[in-house]
């Protein structure tokens, strides 16, 4: 079978077998980005222990690239400190997936935003404590 819509093998692999699908009970932070109108919604859940992201899960409504980037970003953040995680750019997510077709780059942006937003949520909750 030919690569669909110029997706890399890695993208297809993550799309077929997405890692970390689901929600985390009592998450340390939640990031919700996107909206149904533009066709992509991502929810990213993180569990932080001692400033380290020990678990991450996602739920995503969206295309193949949206699902693959969600999967990839959850993999990338696990084991990272919060500061390290904040360094993960959308390009890094795309690169880790072996690249994305130009018209799908916005999905990686969404993944970065979801991550930033989850960490912000975590920090806010920390501040509130």
């Amino acid at each position, binding site marked *: 079978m030919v690569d669909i819509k110029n997706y890399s093998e890695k993208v297809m692999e993550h799309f077929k077998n997405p890692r970390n699908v689901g929600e985390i009970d009592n998450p340390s932070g939640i990031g919700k980005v996107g909206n149904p109108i*533009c066709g992509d*919604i991502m929810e990213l859940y993180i569990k932080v222990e001692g400033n380290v992201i020990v678990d991450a899960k996602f739920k995503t409504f969206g295309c193949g690239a949206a699902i693959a980037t969600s999967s990839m970003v959850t993999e990338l953040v696990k084991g990272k400190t919060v500061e390290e995680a904040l360094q993960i750019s959308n390009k890094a997510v795309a690169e880790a997936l072996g690249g994305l077709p130009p018209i799908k780059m916005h999905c990686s942006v969404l993944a970065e935003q979801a991550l930033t937003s989850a960490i912000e949520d975590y920090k806010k909750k920390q501040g509130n404590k």
Partner: protein
Amino acid sequence: MKRIYMDYAATTPTDPEVIKAMTPYFNEICGNPSSLHSFGQEAKHAVEEARGVIALFIGAGGDEIVFTSGGTEGNNYALKGVVNANIERGNHIITSSVEHHCVTETCKFLETRGLKVTYLPVDKYGVVDPEEVKKAITDKTILISIMHANNEIGTIEPVAEIGKIAKEAGVYFHTDAVQTFGHLPINVDELNVDLLSASAHKLYGPKGVGMLYIRKGTRIKSFMHGGDQENGRRASTHNVSGIVGFGKAVELAKESMENEAVIQTKWRDKLIKGILDKIESSRLNGHPVKRLPNNVNVSVEYIEGESMILNLDMEGVACSTGSACTSSSLEPSHVLLAIGLPHEIAHGSLRFTVGRFSKEYDIDYVLEILPKIVSKLRAMSPLYKKEKI
């Protein structure tokens, strides 16, 4: 893995009989129909024979058929050609909000040239109301263009009625019949059309050839300028093998169209019923009855079309979606929005279109795998969860 093609509305495989008919016209009968010598005249003869077959098929005269490179060219030609020739009479055209891109983009281009365009709304099934057409006509209206059947949701438009209104008002009427040509009976007089476009690759003919019917006496300017092929109405060396293939495809359609429609309607309705039964929160798009015999268009809520397409493809099934994610514009199908679907439901649409080489098994197979795919994707969807809480 068995591969199942259910995207006949996008394009059809060329029928083996069509290929056979075309083959001699690549290098046995290889002249240019515009050439005076016998090599050329043999080719010309073949082109004229195909023209005759096609003309007869829609109740037209041979000199009313102009061969084109496809449906897009026919639609560009019809709209630009009529506007260019009649701009002194008026600067207004009427079309619908569910036309194919090649009609709407041409309209948008014409708007940049000062033309006024009315895009009529449709009802929830995608049907244009003839009364709305009537109301939209002004003394500046020179052309009405409403498609015969919609390529996405399969809805058949009341073309004959609209044609009657156009005729009474003395306004030219064009219909994009790309999806119906070779599938439903067409008679240009019964439909009251002045112009009608078709594309061979939608009826088991080759890609890259089509035709525009132009009723005798219609004022229209050329779109493709150059040599005097097609009585000066469409320049460029004839695509001889393509035209011969188109003619053959029409011959085959003439024979089998009626039977195929009966079978396909049965399968269509089976697939629609199966999906709506098996998948909760799914709905049919387009008209339940006034629809193309081979078209199934459904929306599956809470999940997105591209990811369904990819999963179906992984299981060997080829179909299409109106989701934004598959277009470079990142906008979902204008047709689905026009029938009133919210964006997120438009994103979750699937179109299955069967055809001559489909089997009943294909329907069963889709009904077997689609619910599993939907469950898998819904389990990932943040929207699904929320609704269920």
